[in-house]
């Protein structure tokens, strides 16, 4: 299959599905859903193929495709995957495919919904396979608008209206990205000077980054940190996240919490850290502090919530705190942990949101005091919920434990006491995850919900796909870590080399 542009195919499959959908009459809801499912399935199958045929021993960029694109900006259509981007790509596809099925019951303007969803998935995938900064940026922001429209039409208003939530999410992230963009443009201009010509490929930019002065690296990294940090909902730039998820329809919450947020973490590792090691070194302790603050703060805030989506919303802020802590610990174990934890959290959060979506769909409430005893009436839903909750609290045997453990190792080694505060978050996490689970699923069943139908048929797909990933990743962490490590080691080797040189200019 060498020479076949498999990554482009992965990207285009959902787009193709979207194009086909535009020609389907809007009444054909079932057909539209099937087309969306097929499109995302093709992507998922191909990305699984790529994942398992990637040579981890060899490492580096594989499946590369490069076509010159914009000459005067040095842009090329450069897609490639390495050990860091591949898990993210796979994650996107797992969640994207599941999201289609989690939205199986969308009957309000399904055509528009699934077209936007497919575009959204493509956008997210694009950021992970792009190996060119410009192409990355193209995809980076392209996702925001579909999300906005998805939220305002198919979202739900609770504590805040969906319009508010959607707007806040969009503007917040865009303003974050504005700072990022300034950083990236400034960096690009400097790099063009260093390289003697514009080149947007990651590899070239990393080479250029080597020669930037420590001062430049520091402020450029700060900009990127703010941009990517607000996407990854780094404390205190997180406040879009709970409201945003609460307002969004299930599929969007899944994709947003599951993968979109990860673009922030991915960008921090693959762009900010990779290009600007000295800057990263300077900011690492601050990242760690913010990470720990996020973990604790958001965990406490989650504890005070009664709306299921808010719990998961704050919980995802909290979990992303670990990612920040991991990146802040600035060593190869930390990077491994950060990437793996993003994958783990993605699967878990997506499953969580899909479950909550089903609960909401069936009971028309997400307010915990109004729920209870669902385990009796909808056992399969309960299993999904518990799986997600347990993964959230880092239960060993499920996917998130080992990444968290890895992060703890990395952070504890570097930061000691500070890390302990962060690690203590696992207690709080257990507290709110179990409270949510127990109060929703257990206790005396309510008569109003006796008629509820358990999830079945297509609704089972998210549980099966994501649940399998949760368990498989938990039992065989090497599936994930071999991959991640093959990407993290070269990255950190590069970083350490740069630190040794210490910035030439």
């Amino acid at each position, binding site marked *: 299959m060498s020479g076949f542009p498999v990554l482009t195919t992965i990207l285009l499959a959902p787009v193709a599905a979207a194009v086909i959908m535009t020609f389907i009459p809007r009444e054909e809801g079932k057909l539209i859903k099937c087309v969306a499912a097929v499109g995302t399935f093709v992507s998922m199958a191909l990305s699984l193929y790529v994942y398992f045929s990637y040579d981890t021993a060899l490492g580096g960029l594989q499946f590369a495709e490069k076509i*010159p*694109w*914009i*000459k*005067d*900006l040095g*842009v090329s259509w450069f897609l490639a995957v390495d050990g860091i981007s591949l898990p993210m790509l796979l994650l996107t596809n797992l969640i994207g495919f599941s999201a289609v099925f989690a939205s199986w019951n969308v009957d309000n303007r399904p055509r*528009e919904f699934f077209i936007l969803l497919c575009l959204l998935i493509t956008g997210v995938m694009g950021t992970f396979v792009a190996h060119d900064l*410009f192409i990355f*940026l*193209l*995809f*980076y*922001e*392209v996702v*925001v*608008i579909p999300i*906005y*429209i998805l939220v*305002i*039409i198919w979202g739900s208003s609770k504590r805040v209206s969906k*319009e508010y939530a*959607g*707007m806040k999410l*969009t*503007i917040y992230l*865009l*303003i974050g*990205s*504005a*700072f990022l*963009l*300034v950083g990236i*443009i*400034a960096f*690009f*201009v*400097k790099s063009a000077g260093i390289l003697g010509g514009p080149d947007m490929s990651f590899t070239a930019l990393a080479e250029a980054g080597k020669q930037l002065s420590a001062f430049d690296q520091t402020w450029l990294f700060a900009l990127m940190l703010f941009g990517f940090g607000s996407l990854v909902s780094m404390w205190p730039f997180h406040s879009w996240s709970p409201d945003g998820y609460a307002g969004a329809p299930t599929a969007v919450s899944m994709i947003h919490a599951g993968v979109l947020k990860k673009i922030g973490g991915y960008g921090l590792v693959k762009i900010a850290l990779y290009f600007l090691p000295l800057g990263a070194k300077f900011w690492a302790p601050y990242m760690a502090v913010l990470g720990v603050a996020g973990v604790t703060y958001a965990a406490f805030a989650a504890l005070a919530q009664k709306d299921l989506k808010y719990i998961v919303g704050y919980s995802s802020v909290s979990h992303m705190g670990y990612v920040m802590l991991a990146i802040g610990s600035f060593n190869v174990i930390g990077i491994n942990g950060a990437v793996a934890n993003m994958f783990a959290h993605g699967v878990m959060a997506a499953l969580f949101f899909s479950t909550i979506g089903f609960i909401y769909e069936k009971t028309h409430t997400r307010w915990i005091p109004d729920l209870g005893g669902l385990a009796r009436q909808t056992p399969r839903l309960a299993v999904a919920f518990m799986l997600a909750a347990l993964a959230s609290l880092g239960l060993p045997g499920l996917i998130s434990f080992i990444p968290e453990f890895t992060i703890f190792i990395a952070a504890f080694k570097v930061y000691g006491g500070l890390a302990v505060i962060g690690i203590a978050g696992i207690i709080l996490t257990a507290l709110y995850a179990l409270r949510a689970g127990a109060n929703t699923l257990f206790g005396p069943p309510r008569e109003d919900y006796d008629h509820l139908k358990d999830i079945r048929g297509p609704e089972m797909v998210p549980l099966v796909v994501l649940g399998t990933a949760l368990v498989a990743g938990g039992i065989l962490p090497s599936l994930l870590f071999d991959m991640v490590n093959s990407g993290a080691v070269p990255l950190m080797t590069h970083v350490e080399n740069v630190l040794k040189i210490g910035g030439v200019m």
Partner: protein
Amino acid sequence: MQVDLSLIVPEMAMAVLGLTVLILGLIVPKESRHGLGWFTALALLGVMGLVLAGWNNTGSLYGDLYVVDQFSQFFKITFLAAAFLVVLGSMRFVDKHLGGQSEYYSTLLFATLGMMVMASANDFMTMYLGLELMTIAFIILVCFRRTESKSLESGMKYVLLAGMSSAVLLYGLSLVYGITGTVVINEVGQALALRGPLPILMLGVVMLVAGLGFKISAVPFHMWSPDIYEGAPTPVTAFLAVGSKAASFAILIRIFVVGMFGISLNWELLLAILAAVTIIVGNLVAIPQTNIKRMLAYSSIAQAGYILVGLVTASQEGVKGVLFYAFLYVFATVGAFTVASYFYNVTGSDEIRDYAGLAQRSPLMAAVMVVAMLSMAGIPPLAGFVGKFYLFMTIVEDYLWLAFIGLVMSMVSVYYYLRVALVMYRDEPLDGTPIAVSAPVTVTLLVAMAVTLFLGIYPGPVSEVVNTAAHSFFMH
């Protein structure tokens, strides 16, 4: 003096065309005058073909008074494209609301001719006359709905304020002429490089900035534009926002980047501040607007601020950014205004709240509106993003703060753009009947959207053309 008139064939063609349309109006019976729109549109395409055919036929006339280089050719193509789209998109509107087709189309053609002259003019007089041809034509177009008092009010505001600003501009030109003893821009540049920034010259610069700032509606010289944009017939607004602004940028670039290059250190920061203020005010005031045209007017103020960013460094990259942005700005703006004008045709309203459910009544119109607006906001993968990238690339080293202001405000602008999207996509229409979009408008909308997307996704070819144009400008 050898005069190669082949250089100005497009301009001559435009003049002839304008007169032809005027005469045709007298011949053609009233019932079939709507055909004039088609005629004009096709003729514009023809002229565009002439410009393209003469792409490499460059040179200057009358001792540098009139320069035909790729820079001006590019601008001419931009104007012609804008005019083409506006004509195509406004035929129904003209027939229904304006009447006087031949006057309308010929005036529009003369306005375009004025812009073309501005793009090539290399001395103050030609420049001024081009500018005034365009302005007078626009004044007439703005109050073309002579029964509509809003249209007339805007026309009156425009004529008085434009006259006043022309006076200021002229005052500035006269001072520059007085100091340098020449009105040819190259020579002005040479003279100024020798003489440096005299105080009186700086007064001239102030007046030039004010006079041209008026045309591009840079804050604080922008006050006229929202009112005029709102009051004018919508297709005219589109052309005004696009053509007038782009043409004024053409002379702004010539005057400042060529003429005032020697004293660039004295005005760079001024332009940077102006750009920043323009971006901020335009975007902030757009937020509370409820009328779509007025909102677009404020947004186009902000857009002028962005284009101004490219001038700050007086560099080839900056000019390139301006050219690119001006080009893409045409399509986004014309797209948005065409939707607005067609919507007005159907519903008689310009209020944003009446756009409720447009996505269901006409997905194409809603999509074009969103794409156009997001392009203006600079959201990838739309053209505006690439344009902003080019622009801010030039200033990020020296004017980092401006990059911050520009990009942050562009994200703020998404707020009001998305409010329109919200109304169009979320709300249920009060009147659910689908809107059938007429063929010429469909073409306009599709072209606008396609170019906006294409420039965003694959800007390579256009950026190379723009590069050549900017290069030719600096070779000169």
